[in-house]
């Protein structure tokens, strides 16, 4: 039972850390919260045993890092449009061609 919870926690934490570095960082919170829950359950289940808890600590650490990255990105990163040089060129060319077309329509 504990092993399954730890495996699910590690999977969730890995998804969270991958999402946090992608533009989809908004979605990090969902797997991160799941990973945190699994991590806490795993700690609760292993509190009476004297087994090593390194993997659980690692799971929680990865989750906290992913949450920190996602929070930093949502607070400090502002969205900005990409390079529009080509688009502006196309717009200008389109207008020039349109004037020719309109002249051709007798306008």
């Amino acid at each position, binding site marked *: 039972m504990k092993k399954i919870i730890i495996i699910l926690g590690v999977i969730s934490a890995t998804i969270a850390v991958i999402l946090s570095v992608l533009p989809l960082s908004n*979605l990090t919170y969902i797997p991160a919260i799941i990973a945190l829950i699994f991590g806490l359950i795993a700690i609760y289940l292993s509190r009476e045993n004297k087994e090593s808890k390194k993997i659980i600590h690692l799971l929680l650490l990865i989750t906290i890092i992913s949450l920190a990255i996602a929070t930093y990105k949502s607070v400090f990163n502002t969205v900005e449009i990409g390079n529009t040089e080509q688009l502006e060129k196309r717009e200008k060319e389109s207008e020039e061609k349109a004037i020719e077309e309109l002249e051709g329509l007798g306008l």
Partner: protein
Amino acid sequence: MQRLIFTFLLLFIINTNAQNLPFQAGEKLSFTASYNMSGILTELAQVTMETSEVKTSKSTILRLKCTATTYSKWDIFFKIRDIYESYVNPKTLTPYLYKRDISEGGYNKFVQYKYNHNSKTVASLIRKKKREGGTYDIKKTVPISVNANDIVTTIYKLRQLNFSDTINGSNDSFTVLFDNKEATVSFTYLGKETINTTIGDKECYKLAISIQGTDVLKGNNSNLLWLTADENKIPIYAKFKIPVGNGELKIKSVSGLKY
């Protein structure tokens, strides 16, 4: 005599319409388009609506332009650089020329309609990219209905409607030509609502949009548009539900307003 009266009436209608235009050349509206991913709205692109004057040797024409540009962080995954434009009569908004030049994640398409209102036809040109490189053209003459418009003109014509005396539930429809096919777009007035936006709290006309004969838009009253309940009638907020999800369009900035 009857012809004279008809001409006067026509001129009066044209003049009234011209006075009622809620926008002018130089208006620029910027929006943020967001898509709902697992219940979290993610900002995807910037959409702008601009009006400008274009001068030919004989006349001045109004250019209505809409562009869509993905934010830089999405460009690696799915780069969108779309231009939709319509060249219309500055008084009556009668369209003369429509152009759609889209570039969406490697997919390119160019569509052009030259209107002939006398013969009620449109000379359509569709240009697509060949797989092996180069392009190919498809030219067609498409018959259109009397009041058929392109999508860009329809958005601006919608702003011409008078909602001040409109009863809740009443609707209006437009015939829109898209991909050489006509579709009826209906707008149902749902009353007034005050919404909070980046340009302040605005009292708006709430409209439900539906397209007959196509499944582009999903749900009943799930596609909504809010126009400011002032003389400018700016489209300030929109919610849409499409087969692959749902999203929204929020106003970001406005400039060059008429009123």
